[in-house]
């Protein structure tokens, strides 16, 4: 370890899962994330794990439910239309409080959409997606190294809260190659035993993995228990990065691939004398609302840049709470914004400030 190797995002995430002690993968092919299951199909048998190509995403997510309930660290990956199908299982996993990690390499939608990079599943990932009052922890890496680190962390968070965690990327994060380092390796045998898991009721009361509560009082109690968990996540699991915020007059809020592009736009804007900074949410849920609210007291305006028609911008507006103007620039359908386009927007807003 400590050695840097050049890896594709999709494969790096797969290897990171293995290094995190994950030995089970259930999935279904869909572009642009196929390199991930393909890697797992080669690697998992080498480490005594199981790769299973399911008959559908619906089945795959329910296999994840089974494996997670049986006590294992388990991964599934897909892209937007496939994630929609997995929502059945994800809602049950959240309802039954099981830990699992789901990767969504987002592509353009709605419907079959396209296969190019997109961030149009923000609502689906952060606001539920499936039915019922639940949340996923949603992590959005903007580099392959960060994808590795967050994947490993995702398994810890999932176990800590007994809650599914979603990693969201796109075809760019999934397919680009960058040098990565795996900082640790966990042997699944060393992981703490899950006393709630189903592995045969030997010398103990039986365990039940369930999300059914027919008595509304019981279901409300369950929902409040889940909410307390989500509140704790909001307290403890917020992750973000800031860049050149000290003197910023305008702040870009962007995540994942778009945040990388924003960095170039910030340099170009600063060359023109416009002081621009960046807040990059790394956890999309819990959303880094405090840092944004704080920034609202200092900067003149916000520009939210997304590869969507405007989804995260709603959370930014809630955090800013009317204190400053929040502008939006988005490209959709698989179109990727260029730094120059973003600078153009910045210049327009700069005009509006004066």
């Amino acid at each position, binding site marked *: 370890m400590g050695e840097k190797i050049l890896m594709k995002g999709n494969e790096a995430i797969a290897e990171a899962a293995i290094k995190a002690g994950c030995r089970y993968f*259930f999935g279904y092919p869909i572009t642009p994330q196929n390199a991930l299951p393909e890697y797992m199909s080669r690697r998992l048998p080498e480490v005594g794990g*199981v790769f299973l190509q399911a008959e559908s995403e619906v089945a795959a997510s*329910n296999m994840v439910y089974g494996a997670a309930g*049986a006590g294992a660290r388990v991964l599934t990956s897909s892209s937007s239309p496939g994630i929609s199908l997995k929502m059945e299982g994800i809602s049950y996993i959240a309802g039954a409080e099981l830990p699992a990690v789901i990767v969504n390499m987002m592509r353009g939608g709605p419907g079959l959409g396209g296969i190019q990079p997109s961030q149009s599943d923000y609502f689906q990932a952060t606001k539920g997606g499936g039915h019922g009052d639940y949340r996923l922890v949603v992590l959005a890496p903007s580099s392959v190294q960060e994808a590795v680190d967050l994947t490993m962390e995702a398994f810890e968070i999932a176990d800590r809260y007994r809650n599914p965690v979603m990693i969201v990327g796109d075809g760019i994060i999934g397919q680009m190659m960058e040098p990565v380092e795996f900082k640790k390796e966990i042997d699944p045998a060393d992981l703490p035993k899950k006393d709630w898991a189903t592995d045969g*009721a030997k010398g103990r009361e039986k365990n039940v*993995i369930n999300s059914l509560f027919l008595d509304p009082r019981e279901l409300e109690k369950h929902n409040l228990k889940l909410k307390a968990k989500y509140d704790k996540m909001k307290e403890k699991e917020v992750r973000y990065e800031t860049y050149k915020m000290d003197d910023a007059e305008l702040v870009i809020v962007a995540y994942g691939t778009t945040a990388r592009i924003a960095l170039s736009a910030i340099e170009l804007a600063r060359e023109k004398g416009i002081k621009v900074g960046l807040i990059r949410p790394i956890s999309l849920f819990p959303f880094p609302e405090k840092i944004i609210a704080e920034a609202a007291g200092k900067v003149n305006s916000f520009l939210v840049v997304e590869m969507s028609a405007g989804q995260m911008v709603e959370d930014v507006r809630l955090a800013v709470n009317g204190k400053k103007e929040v502008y939006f620039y988005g490209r959709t359908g698989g179109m990727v914004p260029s730094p120059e386009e973003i600078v153009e927007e910045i210049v327009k807003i700069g005009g509006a400030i004066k």
Partner: protein
Amino acid sequence: MKLVAGYPDSLTEKPFHYCPGCTHGIIHRLVAEVIDELGIREETIGVAPVGCSVLAYEYFDVDMFEASHGRAPAVATGVKRVHPDKIVFTYQGDGDLASIGTAEIIHAANRGEKITTIFVNNAIYGMTGGQMAPTTLVGQKTTTSPFGRDTNTAGHPIKISEMLSVLDGSAYIARVSVHDPKHIRQAKKAIKKAFQVQIEGKGFALVEVLSACPTNWGMAPVEAVKWLADNMVPTYPLGEFKEVE
């Protein structure tokens, strides 16, 4: 005095919520007796479906899952792959297994997933109030086939045991009934075999159990088991469809 018929250890004390005369209770007891007799109670993990037997996880005194509608074989697959040394079974009705869950059961069988499925076929949706099932008989009246099932518009009774027995991954497939003691005895034998097949690692095993739904058939229980014998058995022939040595 020696106990001839008692209460299986693998059932909890909780009384079943099933309607009077519903033969789910018989099938639950048979499964529990088989688990007891094979001495696998502490090794067994069950998966309950959505439908009348949704609460099966409260009745079997083994580790249990409650699955989403039709996905029990996928859930069982996840469990079995993590614990290949444990015994995993699903308990599913006809709406669950033969309608919404057809993809999951066919592929679990085709993969030769080493699980046991108890498939309860009562030719109707019970929990939701008596709608037509894929297994509803031709001409049978239900709340969504009020003039009787018409094959022109609603197709034919689906024959799951026949379908699954042609797949190379299935190791044991049988159809049994619980309408009288003789058939109950045969049903238990088949259920036991279906668990033994799993213990021996031979592949996928399924027992389709023809079952009565007095409430939604609109019959007294005694009349319902007779109707089952007279009408369901001719449509769904009993027997072992597949047994891999």
